[in-house]
């Protein structure tokens, strides 16, 4: 009996240590994202505990600074254009990879994902090398090309996964019902992969908006993205305006992701349940 109760005590202590360890790890993961919020509303230039006072000055500074604003608008323009281009290209690629009849499928799949693995600095330097003589640095076209390359893999991954979840028999059934190829795609395939396309588009948007390495190399004085602007400011004058800009970016990104998640989980439960009656 005695050994048994010490055993149980030991187990309780062990599981307490485990729980605390996990909480510490999760805190470690989330801490750097959360720390920017108090930083952005603290009156002092350096974050202190307890914060000296609260202010929205840094946000005001961010929204009133023409440099920050032009960088933000430029980033948004690039991100929207990239999102559209990458979603179109990536969805077409995924259709060919999953449903198509093409040689070298494995190679094409690897190629479409390669920009994810290749060091971004290499791509940044390479793009600068090619863009500089053509005067494409700091231009929407230049960024659109570079960021579409980087964003396509996200769309390929999400749409490929969505397509693989759609039973090919659905498309056969549609043909059998008299729908032609195009009608089948529009009425049957597209509605069923729409959540995948949508989350791919969100990832593509963020991949462009948050991208810093390639943007560092192909920005110029007149055309810089918000991440390039942030990088410069971190390097030269570490003001809490950066924290305000970061907070705005993070909150907007998370809201976007949240909407995408809500939409896709709603659709997914529907298709999943219909798969196993």
């Amino acid at each position: 009996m005695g050994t048994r109760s010490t055993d149980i005590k030991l187990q309780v202590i062990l599981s307490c240590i485990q729980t605390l360890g996990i909480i510490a790890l999760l805190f470690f993961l989330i801490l750097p994202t959360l720390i920017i919020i108090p930083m952005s509303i603290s009156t002092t230039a350096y974050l202190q505990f307890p914060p000296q006072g609260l202010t929205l000055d840094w946000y005001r500074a961010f929204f009133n600074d023409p440099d920050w604003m032009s960088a933000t608008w430029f980033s948004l323009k690039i991100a929207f254009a990239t999102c559209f281009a990458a979603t179109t290209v990536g969805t077409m690629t995924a259709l060919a990879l999953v449903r198509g009849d093409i040689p070298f499928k494995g190679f094409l799949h690897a190629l479409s994902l390669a920009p994810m693995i290749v060091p971004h600095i290499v791509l940044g330097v390479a793009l600068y090398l090619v863009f500089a003589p053509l005067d494409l640095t700091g231009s929407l076209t230049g960024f659109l090309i570079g960021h579409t390359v980087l964003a396509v893999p996200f769309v390929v991954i999400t749409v490929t996964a969505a397509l693989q979840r759609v039973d090919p028999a659905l498309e056969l059934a549609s043909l059998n019902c008299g729908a032609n190829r195009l009608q089948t795609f529009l009425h049957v395939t597209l509605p069923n992969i729409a959540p995948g396309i949508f989350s791919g588009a969100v990832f593509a948007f963020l991949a462009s908006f948050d991208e810093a390495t390639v943007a560092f190399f192909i920005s110029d004085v007149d055309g810089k993205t918000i991440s390039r602007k942030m990088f410069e400011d971190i390097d030269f004058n570490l003001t809490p305006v950066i924290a305000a800009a970061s907070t705005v970016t993070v909150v907007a990104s998370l809201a976007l992701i949240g909407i995408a998640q809500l939409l896709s989980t709603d659709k997914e439960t529907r298709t999943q349940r219909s798969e196993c009656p």
Partner: protein
Amino acid sequence: MIGQSLSLRGIRKAYDATYAVHETDLDIGAGEFVSIVGPSGSGKTTLLTMIAGFERPTTGSVVVGNVDITRLAPNRRDIGMVFQKYALFPHMTVRKNLEFPLRMRKRPRREDLGKRVDAMLDMVQLSAFAHRYPHQLSGGQQQRVAVGRALVFNPPVLLMDEPLGALDKKLREAMQLEVKRLQQQLGATVVYVTHDQEEALTLSDRVAVMHKGQLEQIGSPLELYTEPQSAFVADFVGTINFIPGVVVGYECGAATIRIASGAIIETATTGTQPLPVGTMVSIAVRPQHIGVCPPGASGVTGTLENLVFSGASRTAHVRLTDMEGLTLRIQVPNELAGLPELGGMLAVALPSDKLKLFHAENGRRL
């Protein structure tokens, strides 16, 4: 709806160098219910997909009524199909699913479309569920939506690919009756693919047995059971025992076979050609045609290994003496007395008019 005839003429399907379906001819009459049965990989589904137009036959043609549809795209064929897992459109309600084939064909006109769908919903008893999504329905209801969607545009031929495979046994039996009722009510021509021989025998006017891409035999359920043309069909339809042996004598349609234990068995043959002495054969006999008697009465003896009660009768498992472990399943009436204890010896009687002879190598009926 009036069903039309369906003919497959010399149809073949090759993938690279191997044949999924060897040259096959099949004529199905208008309003006939024909099942295609066979184990998985026997080519039955390939045959169905060629009729539906999802795959082109390598050679041969598909004819519905008098029209050759071999080169027609699947969406222009007007053939109804019920898919294995129903393939209901998950993003559409039951009503939208049923409307889909009508909308795609742009017929009938708007006002008639609603009426047609209502009538079909009524027929498959789903009027109350028209606004539900497929995932909100039970398996049996989903199955009925699939049938409704396949029939709503009055196709001349209805294909069904293992439509009941996903249902549990009780529901499956109920749905079998339902399918049969709908087919008779509409006079539909149905091609029904299943791996369940019992289901095929229950539902069909005729059954086609596929094996390794070949159509082994087509006939009424009774024909297949009583006069199987190959060892495969004999084995696939119902239960049967095979005893290997070698021909030692032949005389006017009667062969004398010696089996491994040395015993001699007399059988009748169907062929007119004399059987050469030395031909390796398989003797097939149904469990209910074997008699049991005390040892000594016949040349073939065995040990009673097991006695399994199965309702109307019992099945005795008898391991034959000196036959390398070959065990016969014999149907024994419940009231039969005088069986030995388990492990005891008995003799089995093989009535020569009930035995069927098959070639040991190619499985052909002899």
